[in-house]
């Protein structure tokens, strides 16, 4: 009975009317600060500074260096992996203990990430603590000292990292090795297992002395004033120099790693264009058309390749790895061991013979633009993108430029690109239970 009373209109309309009346008052008497556009400066010594004042209470600053695993030499292979691990150890100004406690006390965090091209040291904190945190970041990124005993003590951590590398990561590393062979972009971001023993302070120092140079560094931030960031970048002590140039040569090839199990993971790719090439936007659209991941959580892959794979009983996504001078465009497939052969045949057929329509390209453009905006919206990936652009290209473009480039993509461009890619020499990597997986020349 009580519940029936609650359902009657009279009793419900009274509180509803009151809340509505309250909501009618003016909501903002203060102005809302708008997110400012990107600001960039290039310092005389070559450091690129970029910042976006996004009015967030959290500030993020990153120091990005063009010193990823592609710039390792045979003598210091694996140095970037170890550098990532030792980022928080003793440097010229702080002990490891002191740095950790100081960061914790301020509620800040410091991280180091790297890919093949770029090594990024980043820190975030609330605005009022950011000045101290930026000092700590500068020490960690530019004033390393590598105490031998600390490196030795942390080696087991490196070993654990290498041995627990997920299969998907290993697959992509294998693909790069197959495509670009044993140098430059073929260098894995994961330290080679057999070379862990040779890594020590000398190898780390040699990698940094070759790559940590002013002309190869970008300092980026969000939630920070541009002048403050410029002054900070000017205060960084970075030596001058050119450093190693990118020298990737696409060779193409195949790498199969049979480890048994119930799943087969396969990646196939052709050589793509670099980050600043005119076709970069077209590649992004093509990737979106072919299908990059699911929109709905736990949903089957979308796009041309995702649909073909789902029909055959597996999963597939398009791959678009972009570096400053070259890239890889293709697909990755995951399937049960028994069905892997059929799934790969289906996906490969879709990859090679799909005919793209205007509707496909429009869909691809919308997805690509959304992906760009999504990355820009998140301050973490925003800073990372600015860092990667600044360090690898020497300039940072605003999101609006990327959106304009995507808008300018035409159906004929994407079709030409697609034809060129499928006609080129392919590379393949396969990992898992490969008994039904075809070889590259059988595709």
């Amino acid at each position, binding site marked *: 009975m009580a519940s029936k009373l609650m359902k009657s209109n009279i009793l419900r309309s009274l509180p509803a009317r009151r809340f509505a009346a309250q909501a009618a008052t003016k909501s903002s008497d203060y102005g809302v600060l708008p997110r400012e556009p990107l600001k960039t400066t290039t310092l005389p010594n070559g450091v690129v500074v970029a910042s976006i004042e996004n009015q967030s209470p959290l500030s993020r600053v990153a120091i990005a260096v063009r010193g990823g695993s592609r710039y390792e030499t045979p003598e210091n292979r694996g140095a970037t992996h170890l550098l990532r691990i030792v980022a928080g150890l003793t440097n010229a100004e702080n*002990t490891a*203990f*002191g740095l950790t*406690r100081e960061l914790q006390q301020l509620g800040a965090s410091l991280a180091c990430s790297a890919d093949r091209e770029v090594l990024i040291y980043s820190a975030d904190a609330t605005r009022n603590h950011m000045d101290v945190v930026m000092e700590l970041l500068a020490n960690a990124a530019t004033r390393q000292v590598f*105490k*031998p*005993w600390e490196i030795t003590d942390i080696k087991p951590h490196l070993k654990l990292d290498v041995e627990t590398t997920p299969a998907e990561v290993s697959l992509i590393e294998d693909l790069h090795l197959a495509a670009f062979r044993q140098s430059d972009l073929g260098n894995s971001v994961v330290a080679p297992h057999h070379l862990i023993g040779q890594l020590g302070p000398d190898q780390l120092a040699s990698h940094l002395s070759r790559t940590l140079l002013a002309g190869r560094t970008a300092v980026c931030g969000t939630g920070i004033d541009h002048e403050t960031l410029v002054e900070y970048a000017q205060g960084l002590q970075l030596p001058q120099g050119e450093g190693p140039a990118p020298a990737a040569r696409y060779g193409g090839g195949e790498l199969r790693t049979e480890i048994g199990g119930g799943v087969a993971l396969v990646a196939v790719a052709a050589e793509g264009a670099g980050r600043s090439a005119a076709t970069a936007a077209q590649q992004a659209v093509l990737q979106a058309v072919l299908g990059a991941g699911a929109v709905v959580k736990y949903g089957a892959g979308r796009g041309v390749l995702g649909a073909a794979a789902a029909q055959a009983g597996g999963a597939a996504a398009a791959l678009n790895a972009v570096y400053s001078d070259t890239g890889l465009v293709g697909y990755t497939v995951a399937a049960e061991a028994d069905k892997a052969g059929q799934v790969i045949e289906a996906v490969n057929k879709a990859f090679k013979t799909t005919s793209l329509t205007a509707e496909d390209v429009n869909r691809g453009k919308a997805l690509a633009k959304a992906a760009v905006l999504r990355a820009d919206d998140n301050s973490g990936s925003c800073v990372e993108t600015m860092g990667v652009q600044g360090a690898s290209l020497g300039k940072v473009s605003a999101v609006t430029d990327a959106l304009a480039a995507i808008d300018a993509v035409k159906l004929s461009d994407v079709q030409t690109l697609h034809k060129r890619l499928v006609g080129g020499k392919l590379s393949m990597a396969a990992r898992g239970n490969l008994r039904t997986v075809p070889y590259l020349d059988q595709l």
Partner: protein
Amino acid sequence: MVGEGNSGLLSGGAMQWLRRWAYNASGFNKLGLWHDDCLYEDDEVKEAVRRLPERLQDDRTFRITRAMQLSLSHQILPREQWTTFDEDIRYLKPYLEEVRKENREKAEWSKK
């Protein structure tokens, strides 16, 4: 403290003479030991020794082992092999100072 600069009591030359005399009188050099080999191994010294480069650790181990052998056989080295005041380097000092600085920092933080 031995190893510091001028004393304030004696002039530079006199101070040096006194230091040399004290070094030779203490006798560990007759067993081929260096000053830092004789430090009592508390936790700080143990950590400092752990941080020594391998070569210095091996040299230290050799000298200590040789001294123990001499001691148990009630011998000393021939005079030419005694450690001289000038060749005795305080090799452990920088590492020990760093360990002590780190421990002080930890103590400071745990006070807060």
